[in-house]
């Protein structure tokens, strides 16, 4: 299923279409400068909202609501970050509980998806399964279902079995949404490990299961780690199921909790910004760790290089 677009790597800085020497002559140089300028402007536009969010999170309230907006000379405070974790009267804030819930839900659902998805991906890669292509397409298409639509029957189902407003309910639905991704992503990684390794091991007297566990699995570990990180990010960021299937503070994950901050008549934007930064930071770190696999990751394992 893996798509291979030749052998290129986009982050490789040495590769270029036109040798620089040729490009930099005469008219080419002016153009090059223009291109750099254009890229810079685009980068500033793309990054401005993120920088603004970070800036707002460390601004004193007075400066947050200043008109016209203050870009540079503002008073720095860490108060908003304190408010994220500590409740006004001391003790843990509702937000910090939500963050903890997010860690549990994202972590457990990712583990579940990995445990179910990796063996399935290996089996799809190694064995001639009946209607393999159809099965794989079916698996991927479940991932494309509109969450708002799926949540209606899930809501009724959970109400019947008492999973409404429980972490287990969220974990199950997130795992179900991450399993297709894990299978598609991991199948690509398994395909890259030659089946001959297992054949050789089996000639040496290992069973197929042993061959998988002792020879293929260790080679798959980096791929499993990357896949799990993506699944973690998806569950961490998920909002639609979280808001419809949970309601109490002790169960709610971070996205609905942060969104809940703008419910009242006045909005503490400094707190919203700080909570957003705290929420987004781990994602950015994780995304940076798996940057080599981003193309495969964001296309649900469908496109690979």
């Amino acid at each position, binding site marked *: 299923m893996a798509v291979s677009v030749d052998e290129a790597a986009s982050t490789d800085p040495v590769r270029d279409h036109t040798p620089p020497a040729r490009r930099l002559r005469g008219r080419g140089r002016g153009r090059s400068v223009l291109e750099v300028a254009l890229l810079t402007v685009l980068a500033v536009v*793309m990054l401005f*909202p993120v920088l603004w969010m970070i800036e707002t999170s460390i601004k004193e309230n007075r400066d947050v609501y200043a008109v016209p907006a203050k870009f540079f000379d503002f008073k720095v405070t860490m108060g908003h970050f304190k408010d994220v974790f500590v409740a006004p009267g001391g003790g843990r804030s509702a937000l910090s509980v939500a963050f903890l819930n997010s860690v549990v839900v994202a972590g457990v659902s990712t583990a579940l998806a990995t445990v179910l998805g990796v063996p399935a991906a290996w089996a799809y890669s190694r064995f001639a399964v009946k209607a393999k292509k159809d099965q794989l397409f079916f698996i991927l298409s479940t991932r494309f279902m509109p969450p708002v639509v799926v949540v209606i029957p899930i809501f009724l189902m959970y109400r019947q079995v008492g999973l409404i407003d429980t972490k287990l309910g969220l974990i199950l639905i997130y795992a179900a949404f991450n399993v297709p991704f894990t299978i598609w992503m991991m199948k690509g990684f398994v395909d890259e490990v030659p089946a001959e390794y297992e054949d050789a091991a089996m000639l040496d007297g290992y069973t197929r299961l042993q061959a998988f566990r002792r020879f293929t699995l260790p080679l798959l570990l980096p791929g499993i780690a990357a896949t799990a990180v993506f699944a973690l990010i998806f569950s961490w960021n998920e909002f639609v199921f979280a808001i419809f299937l949970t309601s109490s503070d002790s169960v709610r994950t971070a996205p609905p909790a942060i969104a809940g901050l703008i419910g009242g008549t006045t909005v503490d934007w400094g707190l919203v910004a700080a909570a957003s930064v705290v929420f987004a930071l781990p994602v950015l770190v994780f995304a940076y760790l798996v940057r080599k696999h981003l193309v495969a990751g964001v296309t649900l394992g469908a496109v690979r290089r």
Partner: protein
Amino acid sequence: MSDPTTLTTDHAVQVASATPPAPRRPRRLSDRGLAVAFISPALLLLLGMSVFPLLWALYLSFTDYSATRGGQAHFIWFENYTAILTSAQVHLRALTTLIYVVGAVTLQTVLGFAIAYLISRRTHGRGLLTTLFLVPMMLSPVVVGLFWRFMFDAQFGVINSMLGSLGLGQVEWLTQQRTALMSLIVVDTWQWTPFIMLIALAGLTAVPKYLYEAASIDRASEWFRFRTITLPLVWPLLLIAVLFRAIEAFRLFDLVYILTSGGPGVSTETLSFHVYKVAFLGFNTGTASAYGILMVLVVMVLTQLYLRYLNKLKED
């Protein structure tokens, strides 16, 4: 990629059944058992959490069931479907969704490809540039929505503040009929341009260098090279990205919920948001299910298209 390494066991079983070599037979059987044991747990979870709910929704869509009223569900067959397909309200949401999907995806594609093209022409700092550009894509829609909502704020939003210092008038971005949908498109474009950029960049760096060298020996113009080499080679991959984004944009819910809640009026209510309103605010579960099933049909068609192109790309 996988074909040469895949073991075609079921073919071998047929051949082997004539004269079974004694020691190999049990292993092949255990292969099949292993495949079933490894695949079925994942499939069971999907059946339970995706297929079964959808089938239930399908059943509900033929009834007048209401989640709040409870009671017995009565079969009313296709009444829900005809009601939805003939409703002017739904048509309006379909139009809004269409404008939103086409507008956002077009903008993203043009911008994303342009950025990718510019980056691919750089020799230095490509890794850093790519990483910086990718940040918006990794953020949660909640964070993105909240933050743009703050920036769009009519009173102390930074955008109006900048407009003000340029001597331009203030705009109520999210609370005006005309600008609200536009703002939504802008935010989605901001978040997902990196996605197109990433995939376009993958395509661009995969174009073999010698093609350009050959073209420049032939003194082909830059535009000619772009049109006859770059575009045809990147297009298949770009199309995948575009279709992927179209499906995602069609399903979009969270950004609308956070940014505008469908308002002002119903000017930013997409189909997804409307389904939510019918289901959770109107509690017409039957109607909402029918509505949802129709959306699923659209998604299925788009997914089929996506997978077909994916297959084509894989075969080339």
